């Protein structure tokens, strides 16, 4: 029950943080002078297209861009009624993308869950690769196995992702017949979910997962190896050996449990760095994830779109840290029982 209470408390602080983050995001995207519409209006005026100016002016009022900034923020969040009553993020209305002339939710809809999918796959990949490799490298430290693992790891860290992507696409396609670019075969786009579509998506996921995950995995492997080496020198490991444990079981039961903490704590950091770090990769790989959308929106000052994407990334980060915090409390009794009298 203790743990449930902690989770609830942690959820509360998460919401609070999210609120603060929303203020910051709104402030930052409004830092550059002007907004999408006022830029457009200036452009129309210069070229004498008065009819279009009227339409833009109308939109400005429609989306309350003529109001002071703090009111704009409250309307955007849905704390204050806008021109059409309460209709902000809280009410599920994410705003209008001026550049695409469509609602934000329509633009990001698909790429939202594709982003989650790609990143989830990458995170799983990171953990599945880093965990065994890190442990083996530590257990066999200063042997050929360790050096080989480190070499591959550094290769992964040092190779630019887009380059890796191109190489993998070329050879993957040539030798294994893997698809190039995109997240599904073109014929499935916009189609309802079907078994064939899932297969196509999974097939398309292989290369992106590998590309996005490699550097994270090698970094994490090195960290796990270092942590494990620290732990292996501790007296409790000796105690376990003196008890007569088999090395493999001893490794898994004692040092790994302790070395695992930073590993878990990393979940929170992994998510955002993957979303923002994978922009370039997404462009190169032609993935319809949210990264390229964000880049475009920021460039053209499409404020509602970029605001929403940033909020989404922030939410991912916060959820990641929350998960890792709750997991840590579950894993480590020292954190759990802090303050309990011995």
């Amino acid at each position: 029950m203790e743990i449930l209470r902690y989770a609830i408390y942690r959820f509360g602080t998460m919401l609070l943080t999210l609120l603060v983050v929303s203020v910051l995001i709104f402030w930052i995207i409004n830092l550059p002078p002007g907004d999408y519409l006022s830029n457009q209006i200036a452009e129309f005026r210069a070229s004498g297209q008065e009819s279009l100016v009227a339409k833009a002016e109308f939109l400005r009022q429609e989306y309350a861009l003529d109001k002071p900034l703090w009111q704009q923020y409250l309307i955007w969040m849905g704390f204050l009624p806008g021109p059409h009553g309460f209709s902000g993020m809280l009410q599920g209305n994410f705003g209008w993308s001026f550049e695409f002339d469509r609602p934000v939710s329509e633009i990001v809809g698909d790429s939202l869950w594709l982003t989650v999918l790609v990143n989830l796959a990458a995170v799983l990949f990171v953990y599945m690769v880093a965990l065994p490799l890190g442990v083996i490298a530590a257990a066999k430290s200063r042997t050929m196995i360790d050096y080989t693992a480190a070499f591959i790891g550094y290769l992964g860290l040092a190779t630019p992702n887009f380059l890796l992507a191109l190489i993998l696409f070329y050879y993957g396609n040539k030798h294994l017949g893997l698809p190039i670019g995109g997240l599904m075969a073109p014929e499935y786009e916009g189609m309802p979910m079907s078994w064939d579509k899932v297969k196509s998506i999974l097939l398309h996921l292989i290369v992106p997962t590998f590309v996005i995950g490699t550097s994270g995995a090698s970094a994490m492997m090195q960290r796990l190896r270092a942590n494990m080496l620290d732990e292996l020198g501790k007296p409790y490991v000796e105690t376990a050996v003196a008890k007569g444990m088999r090395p493999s079981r001893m490794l898994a039961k004692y040092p790994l449990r302790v070395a695992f903490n930073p590993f878990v704590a990393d979940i929170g950091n992994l998510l955002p760095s993957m979303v923002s770090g994978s922009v370039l990769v997404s462009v190169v790989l032609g993935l319809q994830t949210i990264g390229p959308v964000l880049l475009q929106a920021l460039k053209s000052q499409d404020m509602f779109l970029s605001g929403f994407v940033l909020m989404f990334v922030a939410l991912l980060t916060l959820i990641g840290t929350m998960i890792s915090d709750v997991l840590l409390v579950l894993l480590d009794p020292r954190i759990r029982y802090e303050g309990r009298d011995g």
Partner: protein
Amino acid sequence: MQPLLSVENLSIGFGKSEPVVRDVNFSVSAGETLALVGESGSGKTISCRALLQILPRAAQIRSGRMLFNPNGDPVDLATLSSRKLRHIRGNRIAMIFQEPMRSLSPLHKIGNQVAEALKLHGRISDSDAKRRVLEQFERVGFPNPDRTWRSYPFELSGGMRQRAMIAMAMVAKPDLLIADEPTTALDVTTQAQVLGLMKELQQETGMAMILVTHDLGVVANMAEQVVVMHKGRVMEAGPAAPILRAPAHPYTQKLFHAAPKIPDPVAQDRPVERDLILEMRDVAKTFTMRAGKAWAAPQKVQACAGLDFSLPRGKTLAIVGESGSGKTTAARIALGAEAPDAGGQVLFRPTPDATPVAVHRMDRKQRRAFQREAQMVFQDPYSSLSPRMRILDTLSEPLEIHDIGGASERRDRAGEMLKMVGLPTDMLLRFPHAFSGGQRQRLSIARALMLNPSLLICDEPTSALDVSVQDQILSLLEDIRDAQNLSYLFISHDLAVVARIADEVAVMRRGLVVEQAPPEELFHNPNHPYTKALIAAQPTPDVNRPINLKLVAQGAGSPEHWPEQFRFKGSDAPPLVAMSPDKGSEATASGHKVRCHV
């Protein structure tokens, strides 16, 4: 009778270098205790770890046999397959390590870790294993075995963790127990109790024991056989009693003389000191601990209360107590690093006729001046010197901070101080890792002396050192004190160390001074049960003076269980009462104070 274990011509080396253990021979029979004695680096730990092949990876056994013979069918542990060796580890030969704080996994419950020793070596049901572990917990003195089963290591004190380690080693009923400095990290009263427990368990089960220690006092209390090691070789071996009575080898003699001893009574007239360098009046310190939950009220913990000390110039005042007794808090308050609770006063006189500085409420300028006068020597010479700074930089840093002298003057002063602490001046450009523990402690003394202070606060300066090195450091501190007319506030958990250097000793327990007297008076006329327990628990290298466990248990218990006259509960302590001079003796018992009901 065949010995249970006999080690023949054992040599161990690292990599390709010279062996660190050479031609070591010893044997131990069932029911017998063998002590391996030596200083750090003597090879005693490596030799006993070799038995179970728990060695650093680079170390190999070069030659020798280790015959283990539990049932008339000897096996050589040196050549055993790792599979068979695993069956012996923890089952036939168990081991206890030095640091109970770190020898248990912090993330697993005690019950789980102890029961594992049983489950690894035979088919045993969970409920049977738990029953046997609980029995063992009860046997090693856990008041509530069920609770211990569910506890995590960090919920237990050091002594209790070592009991858990003993339970883990004993639960499989081994034929041989190897204890590697099992009590070095413990308070002296806890040490006495743990040693007593190990001895009892040995008598019950008839197992053999190999005890690795640097403390001849422990040897005298525990061992029948002794092997003295130095630089990887056996110096002297044989039955304990004759060796301790008349050590034949010069190295054993040296160890023997370095062991701190309780002093003989000397009648001394003590003039009343007027020139006090440091006075603490009615000092108390309460810490407020943040509660674990945001809505709960913070907890108040009293670290110490009612401290009245006066330190005459050129003298040494020692504060003795176990961990948690408040002695370090007292030192920190004396140093101005911590402010006492309102009402407490700390007065410091830099020169005999200067107006006293109120250390408890200094302003910035006063604090700066005070820092030049009062310096500290820390406990752990390994972590109190920056590994990335050359000795010269470490030593001249205080001068830089206080903006004294130019580079060449600083260098000269550093060289001078090195010479004073007995190190050659050409070591100035080295890094700390090039120095041994004793040399590092000399360095931290040199650093403390750089500003030419008048007061040194020594926080257990020798507790991390070997006995013979401890002896040297204490001599050095004495010499410097007398040469420079320094005054020491000396913090220690070891009465015997303090006996030698102190002019006045205050014994602290649970934040209160329970007895205060000059050392001769304290050792030969102790009044308080806790002081008696501390003295009784002190292992001395004398086979005829075993540790009196009854006295230890009585005095080291909680204040509610002390004899009527001294008993108190909670913060309702009796006052510190001056003792009237002993009528029979000539000595005037000046300043002997005891906390008791009159």
